[in-house]
């Protein structure tokens, strides 16, 4: 009833090509943004903002980055956490070494540094494909974490590479309350998500998808493979780098290189798999799922099984449930939550008269 596109005629090319061609979608996106920006800060508790919403947004950004590389350009990467680390440490260095550095510029600098490193580690992708490439990106993962720990220069000689983020100040306003940090992160993520959405609908995005689907064929129709693949690595790493900088500055405050370990890379990979490979929306859904699941399991196990099980078993049970759920999801819906969303939308278009 509500979700009908009947009567919405496209009378110009501009109308045909806009991001959300259906009016209801535009309203929904607008509503989500308004709720996220105005209602949430008013109603959400400090715990929700600090421990759930901020990490959710940051992980969404990282998942978006990985989705560009893996979902759109088809290059499997297991090193996204390392690129986040590069972003975090580069932003820290920009802030610490340059007097009066604007913090947003430092974030961009962090992203650009990550992009440069990403291009470097993306070079092998020109010759290596599939799982061989996945293992190659592990080289980036281990090497970067090692280098950040070993060389004091990166962490400005703090002990064992732990960095403490400087305070965020933009135009004299200090972002020190959870709500202000949340709004800052929300703005950055919204702008970058919009940019990503537009990128994948442009010629760049179509080139990525052509390379993903079959790179030899893409080359034959005149797509520059090297340019396309390295651009995917650069932009993906840029997103991961900014996410890493936010992770350090807006979420944790204090990070060490070991915090960006392989587990985090896997976590981000899970997000895009569960959310939907090759979907902007899926990055957000997957991030929400992976951020909320452990909290949910914690609460569930604590509330219902506290008396029944010793803590050592319940933590292992959580591990098993987590692994089991991932397998379950892959079996039930290999295309992720985004696909379920699509199916739901299709159903909604026919509802309540499916015939």
């Amino acid at each position, binding site marked *: 009833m509500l979700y009908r596109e009947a009567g919405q005629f496209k009378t110009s090319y501009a109308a045909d090509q806009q991001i959300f061609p259906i009016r209801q979608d535009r309203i929904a996106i607008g509503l989500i943004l308004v709720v996220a920006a105005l209602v949430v800060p008013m109603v959400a508790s400090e715990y929700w903002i600090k421990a759930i919403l901020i990490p959710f947004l940051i992980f969404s950004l990282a998942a978006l980055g990985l989705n560009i590389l*893996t979902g759109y350009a088809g290059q*499997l990467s297991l090193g996204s956490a390392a690129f986040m680390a590069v972003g975090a440490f580069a932003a820290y260095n920009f802030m610490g070494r340059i007097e009066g550095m604007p913090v947003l510029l430092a974030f961009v600098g962090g992203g650009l540094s990550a992009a440069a490193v990403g291009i470097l580690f993306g070079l*092998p992708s020109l*010759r*290596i*494909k*599939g*799982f*061989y490439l*996945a*293992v*190659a990106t*592990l*080289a980036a993962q*281990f*090497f970067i974490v*090692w280098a950040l720990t*070993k*060389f004091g220069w990166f962490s400005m000689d703090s002990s064992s590479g732990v960095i403490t983020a400087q305070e965020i100040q933009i135009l004299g306003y200090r972002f020190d309350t959870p709500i202000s940090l949340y709004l800052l992160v929300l703005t950055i993520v919204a702008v970058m998500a919009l940019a990503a959405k537009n990128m994948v609908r442009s010629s760049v995005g179509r080139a990525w998808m052509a390379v993903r689907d*079959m*790179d*030899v*064929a893409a080359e*034959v129709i005149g797509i520059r493979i090297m340019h396309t693949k390295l651009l995917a690595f650069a932009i993906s790493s840029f997103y991961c780098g900014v996410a890493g900088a936010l992770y350090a500055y807006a979420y944790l405050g204090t990070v060490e290189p070991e915090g960006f370990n*392989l587990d985090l890379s*896997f976590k981000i*990979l*899970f997000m895009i*798999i569960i959310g939907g*490979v090759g979907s902007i929306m899926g990055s957000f859904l997957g991030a929400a799922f992976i951020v909320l699941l452990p909290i949910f399991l914690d609460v569930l196990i604590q509330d219902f099984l506290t008396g029944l099980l010793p803590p*050592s*078993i319940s933590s*292992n*049970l*959580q*591990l*098993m*449930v*987590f*692994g*089991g*759920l*991932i*397998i379950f999801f*892959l*079996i039930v819906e*290999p295309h992720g939550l985004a696909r379920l969303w699509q199916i739901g939308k299709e159903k909604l278009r026919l509802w309540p008269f499916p015939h």
Partner: protein
Amino acid sequence: MQFFFEVLIGGLLSGVMYSFVALGFVMIYKASGVFNFAQGAMVFFAALTFVGFQEMGAPFWLALILAFGAMVLLGIATERIVLRPLVNQPHITLFMATIGLTFFVEGLAQGIWGSTVRGLDLGIQDEPIEWIMDKAGILVSSFDLFAAGVAAALVTLLALFFQYTRVGRALRAVADDHQAALSIGIPLQNIWRIVWAVAGFVALVAGLLWGARNGVQFALTFTALKALPVLILGGFTSVPGAIVGGLIIGSTEKLAEVYLGGYVGGGIDSWFPYVMALAFLLIRPEGLFGEKHIDRV
């Protein structure tokens, strides 16, 4: 020079240990095209099960058989619950499923047997052999040598199994071409179960040797990460590749740590194998013994 050889031999022998884990990967990849990330967790599970049964008072052989039985069960369950519903899915989905399996198996192993670090005694001393010490002046651990012997025996056994038994021939047929194998009546699902069981056996052997070396603990799961560069160096589909790759990685890793590590502050063995394998891939993108891949449009 003597020191060089000592490091080299030590590295080669520790490379044998990597090969064990890589072997399990290769078996499963060859037969079912699944990149089984859970191999490390299987090593952990196998070793923990073995030690668990031993603690319950089972003698060595019984514990070995029971642990092998557990691995077979795990393999069959994996085939039934995880792989069969995911047939015809893209490789990355299967790969992700095995990561999920990794979490599950780790939780299962620790849930059943507890997460304390246990010792594992195979009755072999980890001491330098005096005879070689006297003759050449090189320290060679008897345990490492034993591991190398087991590796040789295992590879021979696997090679014979693949070459001369009915099941082995079927396995090779499946590895060559699923469709063709199915069309001449080879039961694919049985073959997969067997492959997972054999990989479980390899994991058990690896778990026993690694466990006897470093204690049975959670860190055993990281052996999978050590095996990955071995795999890409040797090629995903080659059993000899896993062995040769293991030897190359093991020896260069130790040599690099000793001769280069000093210049950059040490600890380079966490990433050196990967970077080396990466450099190697640039020259041969399909590994040493991997099948050459030809792209067609």
